[in-house]
Structure formats: structure tokens, C-alpha cells
């Protein structure tokens, strides 16, 4: 298929003003969406998004675009389903062809315990009003005929959870849609502007230091994904995060063979076929902390081996390009979104390997949090304090599903 045309105008490149009501640090999907909802929902338009590189050039430009809301715990389903509902109207809302495609996501189960965990998640999802099905191997084959469901492989497919409303979107277009719409409402998108310091007075944020000078700010929202710890450290705030490389890759363009999205945690691979026809794949994180936007190649090799176990027909597809992002992994695989001990400074981080899908949802909730100085009900459970009280939202323990 052909990609739709982009609009003739996206955004301009303003000089930063001396001061803004709200400064968003990080022009990735989350930062742009937050700015958009601040302007649109809360009427706060004296907003700048500060991006150290090119707009949405971080994880937003690097992710594998899987969107789903079938998380285990109520807290997670709340925010991810809120997000999915926003995705369903986003193309119209932004007036941008974001190629949101609800082609469904299969999460494969390869062991009896995987099956139990999967069924548990499906049941929880349904009671939370999220579309979810448990499908047997034959059902997997019907949804995605190229999956090898033979019982004679190392990790046979024993079934899968299926969320029909899940799918993919085109990441750049999503970011650009938000950026364009935010810009149109008066938000300043300032690129090549790295925040190097956070200024506080009397326990309140007052300004940000940047590579383009000091910018005063009434409120500051951090949306720096992999760099969140570095920013938080500027006000002495320590976060329970580790920044890891996460790699992904694409093949050349191929005739359609893969109608849905398949994820398998046990064999560590997930695949979809993007609109133009390339296979898009990812795997697990590289083990070590790293800000280098590069990972180790053996991860890719392992991922290929895993992919071929599941999809023997991929043998002669070709790897065209690999890359890595920096993901901020939290101990319970859930995000941290909310207030900080510093007045007027708000935190949105810890989305790790799975925050693309949350872009509209967290943009909306984080904007609410900043506007009201109070968390939105959907992000209320995702406080920093939960690591002290123990009220974690542990999304890897039970279902161990990344992305």
C-alpha cells in the first residue's frame, strides 16, 4: 500500500521565549501529546516543548508501534484502555493520517504456565471492559496463518491471547500530528534545545537552564523517557529507573504475509508487517544500562533465531536496518506519572519498552496532572511513593509481556 501524503505545513522553528507557563522537557510522543492536551483540553497555550535533538527523534522514532491495552492489573488496564479509546478517535482529532490499524495482537503462550497466565489476563481484561480472547493453536493459525503451530517445535504454541482492537500506527505520523496540532494552538516546539539544569526556589521549580539559555517556567513536566533519571538528578531526585538499550529492526518490503501482530515473550520476539510491507521486529532489552542508542548484535541474532522458530517462512527475508533506543525500565514494568517533591515539577517516565501505546492516554492524563497539580484518576496509582509503600503494579510478574 502507499502511504498517505503529509500535510504541507507541520511546524516552525521559533526562538525560545524568556518564560512560559508550562515547559515540557522532551519532544517525544509523550511530550508532544502532553502539550497538545494542555492547549486543547485545559486552554494552557503558553507552553514550550524543549527537545535536545530533532522532534520525536528518540524512542518515538524507534519503537515498533505496538498498541494494545490488554494488561493484567486494573491500574494498567485503566490507563492503557483510556489510551486505546483515544487512539480510536485520534486520526480525526489530529486531522492527520496516523495509519492507526486495529489489526489485532496475539500474545503467544508456550508453556502450561503461560496458558494459565494468559487466561487469567484475558478474564481480567474482559471484566475491565477490554476486548480479549483466548485462542487455541488452530485459532492462532486462522488469525495468522504463517505462525508455526506444530506441536513438534522447541516452544510449541499452546494458544494465545488475542485483542482484536489492538494494532499498530505510524509512529512519526503520530508525533507529527500532535506537534502540528499543538503548534497550531500556539505551543512553541523548540528543537536543538537541551535542558541542562532545573532551577528551583523555595521548593518550587522556577526555570530550566538550556543549551539555548535560561527559560523561566511556571510548571515543568518531564517527558524525557530514557533520560529521565538524568533530569531528575538535576533537582536531587533519584528515580527507580534503569536506562537500557532496546533494539529493533526492519526487513525490506514484502508482499503481505502477516496480517496481525504477534508477540512471544517466551522466545523473545515480536513482529508485525508495516503498511508498506516491511517486517518490523523487536526483542528484549540489552542487559546493561546504556545511553548510547546502540545495542549488541547477539541480541539481534537470538531474535532472528526465535523469529524463525515461530515463522519459518521468514528464512529468506532480509535484515535491512537495525537501531536502538534508550528505554527507562522501572522495577515493576509500570510507569511513574505524577507529582514530585518539588512544587510545579511533574514526572512522566518509566514507560520502558511499552510507552508508545500510551501516548494519547498519558498525554491526556499528564496534561491534567500539570493543569490541576493533581493526578488524573488514571495515573493516580502510578506514583513514585509506591516503591516505598510496596503498592507496585507488577506487570512482569504475572504476564511477563513487554511492549
Amino acid at each position, binding site marked *: 500500500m502507499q502511504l498517505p501524503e503529509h500535510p504541507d505545513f507541520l511546524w516552525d522553528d521559533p526562538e525560545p521565549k524568556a518564560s512560559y507557563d508550562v515547559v515540557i522537557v522532551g519532544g517525544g510522543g509523550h511530550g508532544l501529546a502532553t502539550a497538545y492536551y494542555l492547549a486543547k483540553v485545559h486552554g494552557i497555550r503558553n507552553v514550550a516543548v524543549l527537545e535536545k535533538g530533532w522532534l520525536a527523534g528518540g524512542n518515538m522514532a524507534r519503537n515498533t508501534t505496538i498498541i494494545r491495552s490488554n494488561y493484567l492489573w486494573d491500574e494498567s488496564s485503566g490507563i492503557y484502555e483510556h489510551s486505546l479509546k483515544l487512539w480510536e478517535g485520534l486520526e480525526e482529532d489530529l486531522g492527520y493520517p496516523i495509519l492507526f490499524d486495529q489489526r489485532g495482537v496475539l500474545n503467544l503462550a508456550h508453556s502450561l504456565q503461560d496458558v494459565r497466565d494468559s487466561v487469567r489476563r*484475558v478474564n481480567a481484561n474482559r471484566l475491565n*471492559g477490554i476486548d480479549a480472547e483466548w485462542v487455541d493453536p488452530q485459532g492462532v493459525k486462522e488469525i495468522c496463518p504463517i505462525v508455526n503451530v506444530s506441536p513438534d517445535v522447541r516452544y510449541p504454541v499452546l494458544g494465545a491471547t488475542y485483542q482484536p482492537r489492538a494494532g499498530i500506527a505510524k509512529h*512519526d505520523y503520530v508525533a507529527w500530528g500532535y506537534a502540528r496540532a499543538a503548534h497550531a494552538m500556539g505551543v512553541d516546539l523548540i528543537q536543538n534545545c537541551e535542558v541542562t539544569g532545573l532551577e528551583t526556589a523555595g521548593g518550587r521549580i522556577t526555570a530550566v537552564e538550556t543549551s539555548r539559555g535560561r527559560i523561566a517556567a511556571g510548571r515543568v513536566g518531564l517527558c524525557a523517557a530514557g533520560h529521565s533519571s538524568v533530569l531528575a538528578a538535576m533537582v536531587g531526585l533519584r528515580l527507580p529507573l534503569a536506562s537500557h538499550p532496546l533494539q529493533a529492526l526492519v526487513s525490506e518490503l*514484502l508482499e503481505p504475509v502477516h496480517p496481525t501482530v504477534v508477540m512471544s515473550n517466551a522466545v523473545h520476539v515480536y513482529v508485525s508487517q508495516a503498511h508498506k510491507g516491511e517486517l518490523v521486529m523487536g526483542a528484549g532489552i540489552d542487559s546493561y544500562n546504556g545511553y548510547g542508542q546502540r545495542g549488541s548484535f547477539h541480541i539481534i541474532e537470538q531474535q532472528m533465531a526465535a523469529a524463525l522458530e515461530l515463522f519459518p517462512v521468514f*528464512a529468506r527475508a532480509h535484515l535491512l536496518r*537495525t537501531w536502538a533506543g534508550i528505554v527507562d525500565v522501572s522495577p515493576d514494568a509500570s510507569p511513574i506519572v505524577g507529582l514530585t517533591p518539588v512544587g510545579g515539577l511533574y514526572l512522566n517516565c518509566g514507560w520502558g519498552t511499552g510507552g508508545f501505546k500510551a501516548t494519547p492516554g498519558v498525554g491526556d492524563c499528564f496534561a491534567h496532572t500539570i493543569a490541576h497539580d493533581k493526578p488524573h484518576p488514571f495515573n493516580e496509582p502510578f506514583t513514585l511513593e509506591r516503591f516505598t509503600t510496596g503498592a*507496585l503494579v507488577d506487570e512482569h510478574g504475572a504476564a511477563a509481556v513487554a511492549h
Partner: protein
Amino acid sequence: MNFRTPTGGTIDRNTLLHFTFNGEGFTGHSGDTLASALLAHGVHEIGSSVKFGRPRGIVAAGSEDPTSLVQIETPFPEPMLLATTVELYEGLEARGLAGQGRLASISDPARYDAKHEHCDVLVVGAGPAGLVAALTAARSGARVVLVDEQNQAGGALLGVDEYLDDRPSASWVADIVAELKSTPGVLVLERTTAFGMYQDGFVLALQKRTDHLGFAAPASVARQRVWRIRTKQTVLTTGAHERPVVFPDNDRPGIMLASAARTFLHRYGVLVGSRAVVFTTNDSAYCAAINLAESGVDVPLIVDARPEAPARLATECAARGIEVRAGQVVTGTEGEGRVTGVHVAGATVACDTLLVSGGWNPVVSLFSQARGKLRYDAELGAFVPGEELGSVRVAGSATGELDLASCVRQGREAGSAAVVAAGFSSRGQVPLPVSDSRCTSRSGLVLWRVPGDEDTSFVDLQRDATVSDVLRATGAGLRSLEHIKRYTTIGTAHDQGKTSGMIAAGIVAEALGVEPADQRPTTFRPPYTSVSFAALAGRDRGALHDPVRVTAIHPWHVAHGALFENVGQWKRPWYYPQPGEDLHTAVLRECRAARSGVAMMDGSTLGKIDVQGSDAGKFLDMLYTNMMSTLKVGRIRYGVMCGVDGMVIDDGTVIRVGEERYLVTTTTGNAAKILDWMEEWLQTEWPHLDVHCTSVTDHWATIPLVGPKSRDVLAAVAPDLDVSNEAFEFMTWRDTQVAGVPARVCRISFSGELAYEINVTAWHGLAVWETLMAAGAPFGITPYGTETMHVLRAEKGYPIIGQETDATVTPHDLGMSWAVSKKKPDFIGKRSFARAENQRADRKQLVGLLPVDPSVLLPEGAQIISSDHLPEPPVRMLGHVTSSYPSAALGRTFALALVRSGHSRIGETLYVPVSDALVPVTVTDSVLYDKEGTRRDG
């Protein structure tokens, strides 16, 4: 028509190869590529473009070609290869593509593998600079690897008619290759592309070993091999790619790079057309014009965009009847399909070929992957290596130097510097050849595009991206090349922008009124050329992909019809169906045997760790929630381990073998993790403790013998052992002989029945198992699998870590406060029990569930709610069913579940939504069978 020259090239004219393209039969020669063989028949049109469906031809002669995409159908379908890199073989069937390939629907029978290679100096690219670098390094005794993607060395020399030191360049090349190949410690790899450059001298290269053999490829030889090269020093002599100039209708077949035409002529003996116009911005294309003219091609015109043509070359052209027009450009072309004419200065010049040269782009992909910074060279109009990189040197035209003398000099310098850096002394000077070439100067004009219809001025021929796309992008406010690349898709096709990327950057700079030097080039990402998935997977496939572990007794299980469950890496018998039995009937039978007679299972997969040392007790006291140091020698204790967060991570029995020795068992799936866990604490936190841990899982075969009759069976096979309850108490162990071999028998029970766990060395496992089967036969001994084990333990309320727990469950939640020491000042996880969340009364706790209808089996993973009707979502859930079985002993179904405030809900009725119904269940204690524990003593 035949476009093959009568002589010349490195093809073997004595072999005739038959192939088809788009269904039509052709012939070619050994040494041809698919592209050269097609061009020899005058076929230029290969495929069509992905967006507009415009015909696409052949632009370059090598892997940088943006257009000649084909699908190979034989011997096995492979998508998206370039006709210019497919070596011809007998029986090849190919067809042109419209930008998308097709995967085979059957699996690939070929083998792939990987090989590790360590060397002192790796040279990438066997052109003149690379050959001199490699030879320099080789002569000083270093281990040298030279890789090149072509099937023969020579690089740029393969495409020219140059003489080096007064002899054909091929002969110079052959001499060097011969010396390299005969030097010990030197490896020359042809058809091998270095595609990725990583840290610490790690370079990945793909070798195509049998592709060129087609049907004749031996099945036993890996088709492709990934070389994992670890080198101390690297010399990149990766050359330069010619780049085109963009002008209206620049995409017609028959329009190709001037250097490609030379390569087709000199290497393959193929004329790319009958009448060729040349459009250039620099000297190098003059040689193409002269060579073609000398070979009988009508070359009416060279259009040189520079204000002045080079005098000497112009004179040579005039002598051959080639008109040279300086200060002019090609403003368009015409033709249905292949080009039939070019527009110059308002007039149309008829031709069937247009050769274009817009200058040269050094191949800096690997340098950039190695994190080398690039610098824009304004004279060249291209990015060149901009800094010295420690162990990576660049030489030859990859640096932007285009004349042979500089290239080979750089090659020698780099080769010599590399060996010295690798610790060798550079010995002797490799003599540098002198070329007779006429066209090597780099004085060119940097010209990105000729103004004109922007909609048909193609920047990326593969992505159908035009100048107007670039201008729309800049017009939309985009400044960063990364944004523009994404907006236009330029450089994202299979060629990754090898010929288009620089031009796009140039056009953007022009549009924005900045210098290309002011822009950050887009990042070069591995791989340099595409690599098949299968090659990367290598041998990590099928049975070799995470090999399975089986126990010593496994063959017996297979022979007796067991179905298996994957647990961790192990294959464990799941159940042993008899004819006509399904899971439930088999399991009910197996359970009945265990509760009323005798049954046994293969428990060898259980993790076992031998913990020794004078501080072993102290150490285990820290790891387990309960006390292990007080355990008496000869006795056994069950223990639970938590993470620092207080959540259960594993459980198992601990045997005190001696004063300073314990044997710890873990769950099957966690054996390795728990050993790691122990070693981590010992080495990083408590190195002062005298404790040593050794995994002994595989040393032992472990057979739980279960049931009221187990004592009789054990007595029969262990004559030395007093099996009476008094002499051999519960939670003790004895060393004795079982079935005539040394054995350790533990009186433990995971079923609540009288039971013994018999441990013998794995070597004897199968024999002991068979002896037990025979000894138990009179009692109807029944082998059982993991499913029955699960049912038996569930009836007793024993949790399975990973099934009843999910990293959010504490020992207290499991009702195991009794296993949490109150005396110990500390153990791992203890502090976390005091956190607010752990104190909540409404934590999820392990309970039993009895469906009110005793025949209803709850699905495992079902959720639990409190109301007897289903409210609108979101529905408040109280917990979930962790285990659920029909029970022979209870004569009904039952389940275990984690339920909010579960311990205080005993007796309550809750509801389990199953499909559209709500199943009422009664909450009970988690122990449902023999609560008093009367059965364990037999």
C-alpha cells in the same frame, strides 16, 4: 540483440548458462551477474517502481544499485535481490519486482552457520588500497583477514582498463592475492561483505558460499556464513560510489552511472547500449565515454556541467568523434520505457543510453557505524571520515582521495600503521604501482540537481521520492535531515540511500540556503547490505535452538507413552495416558494410585545445590525465611525464599547432610536462578562467609515413591533400610542401598501421603526406576506425571511457586507464616514485610474454592468477584483461580485461588465468571485433604 563484446572481461565464454527472466529464456556466461547477462541481451528494464509503477532499470553495477530488484525463484525463492549482485548460474529463474518481494511459503532447506575469527588486522575491501594494506600487514607477520563482497579481488580495478606498472591491473591484483593466500595466517574471503562494525574490533561479515552455484550447491555446505571477526586493528578500504545528478525524468531504464557502464564493459564484456550520451560534472566519466566509443558504441555527446571541459580529455574525445559541450546540463529525457533521447539545451539528442556522473561518495558506512565522525568535503560534495579513530583506519577512495597513487599510498600507510599498532614491526615497503589512467583527478563540480519538473526529478528511485517531495518537506517546516528522510522516505529502501542520501542532503541544503556542512548527516545503521534472517539465525534452529534437557529416565517415559510438559529447559512427563484415556481420566487414575496404592514419578529435574562450608547454616538462615542452622544432621526442613522485596521466589526442602553441608532443592524452573542468587550474595555481599555452592541437579536421579504401599515397595528394594515409621521418621533421610546401588532416601511428601524420595546417581537412575516398577508391580505401582503431582499437592494446599505466586505474593499470603522465622533478626525480604502494603488486611491470600456444583471445573486463570450478577465493567475483581482440578480423593472438583482478604472469607460464597455464567463457589481453607496429616505416616 547481442551486446556482448567479442573479447574481454573476466567471464568464461566457454560456459553457456541458461536462465529465465520474467519467463523468457536467455543465456549468459559463468562470471556474469544476472544484470550483466540481461544487458548482454539488451534488456534494461528490470522492474517497476513501487509508487508510480514507472519502469526501473539498472543504475549501478554493484550492491549500491538502487533499482534492479529481482525475485529469485530457483533453486529456492528469495525476495529483493539486486540483479547486479546475483551471480549467474545454470537454471536461474528470476523476475523483476515492483518494489516488494515475496517470501516462499515452504521452509528453507539450506543450512547457515557462523564462524569466529580472530586477527590482528582486518582489511575491508580488496581494491588497490585494500590489497596494498593487506599485503603490508601480511608481510610483517600479522594475522590478516581481507574481505571483499565481490567474487574476486580488485575493487574499482575490476571496472576499468587501467594498466599498473605497464601490465593489466588484473595481473597486479592476481600477484598480490596469490602472495596473500600463500602467506600463513592470512585469510582472504571473497563474496564476503562486512556489514556491521561494533565495539572492540568486532566486525560481522556475511559470506555467500554457495549462492553462485545454484542447483549445484552441495547441501552439506552452509549456504551463507556469518563471520564474527574480532580484530585488533581495522583498515577500511571500502571505496567510493559514484553518484548521479538529479534531473527531470532521470529514472528511465538506460540511464545509468558512467562507472557502471565501464564495469559492464571491462568486467563482463557487455556494452550497455548502442548510442550513449554522457552527462558529467567531473573527469571520470570521460573515460567511460572513450572506452565505450573505442568498443564500438556510438557516443555522440558528452554534456559537462562545468564551465570548461578538461582540455586533454576533450581532445581525446574529439579524436574519437565525441562532441563535448561544457557548461550545459541534461534537462530531461524521453522514451516509453527505456530512454530514447535526452534534452540538452532545448534540443533532443537521440540515444538508448545516458551515462551520468555527479561525482563520488566515499563509502563511510562502517566508519560511521564505528562511531567515527564525518566531515563534509565541499570540493567532493560528500561526507568523508572526519577524525582519526583509535584502531580503525580508512584508506583509499573511502577517504575521498580518488587517484590511484594516493589510494595505494594511503593503503600502505594504513596497513603499516595497523600492524605496528597491533604490535608488529612493519617489514619492508610494498612497492606502489603506477597507473596509466587518464581520468583520475577529482576536480569536479558539485551539482545535486538540474532545475526542471520537480515531480519527475527522482532523488530516490526506489522509493519514488522526488525533488518536489524534498521541497514539500522543507516547505512544511522540516529542517533536520532525519525528519526529511522520514517525510520523503528517501534512503529507507533496500539500498539505504547509498546513491541518494548525499544528493538529498545537498538539495535540502540548497532549499534551506545552508551548507551541507551545517547539517548532521543521517545515521548509518547496520547492516551495510541486507542479510537474510536465516543467516543471522545460523545453526540456532530446530533442535539446536535452546537444547532440551531430559533426565536419565527419559527413555522409559517415552517408551511408556508419556506426554511431556516443558518446564524450564526440561521435558517432564505430564501424564501417562493409557489407551482411550484423556488428561482427566489418566490423572484421576494416577491420583487414585498415589492415594490408595503406590505411584511414582521422575523428580530428577528438581534443582539441587550442594552448599558446603563452616558458614553454610548462617548463610541459609539469611536466604530462607525460616531457620536452617538449627536443622539437625539427618533431618530435612521445608523452606521458602523471598526476594529483597519480600515476595516469594522459590521453595524446596533443605537436607542437612553434615555439620558443614546442606543439600538444597529448588523448583525445576528456578535451579539456575537460585544458584546465581546464592553466588551473588556470597560473592558480592558476604565474601567473608565460608560457603561454597555447587549445582548437583544432573548428578542425581530423584524418584518420589508415593502412597500407602510405598513403604512395602521400598522395603522390597532397600533390604538394609529399616523403613518403619519409628526408625525412619518423617522429614529425615538415610543413606542406604536401593536396588543394589548407593542411594539417599528422604522421607518427605509433596502429596500428603506416606512417601519417600529416592535419590541415586543419575547413572543408575533408569535401572533403579525399572527395579522399582518391578517391585511395585504386585501393588499396582503407577507412574505419574506433573499433572498428578499438581493435583495431589493442591489437595493438600501446597502452592507451586510460579503458579500460585506471581512475584506479588508473600509467604504470609500463602498461609505460610509458620515458615517465617520470628526469631531471626534478619533474612532477605524480612524488612519488606513491614511496609504499608504488606500490612493491609485485604491482601490477596491463598484459599481453596469449592464450586457449589461439585461437577463444575473452574478454568485456571478465571477471575473471582463478590456479586451474584455481572455488573458493568470495570468489574471489581477479588482475585483469580490459580489451580483447578477434578479430585479423585475429594470426589469432586476443587480449586486454589488468591483472593482479597481470602483468609477471613472462609465460608463465604463468591462468584467466578465463566463464559456468560457466574459459577458460585465456597471459599475454604487451602488444605482440602487430610487436614490432620494422618496419612503421611502410612
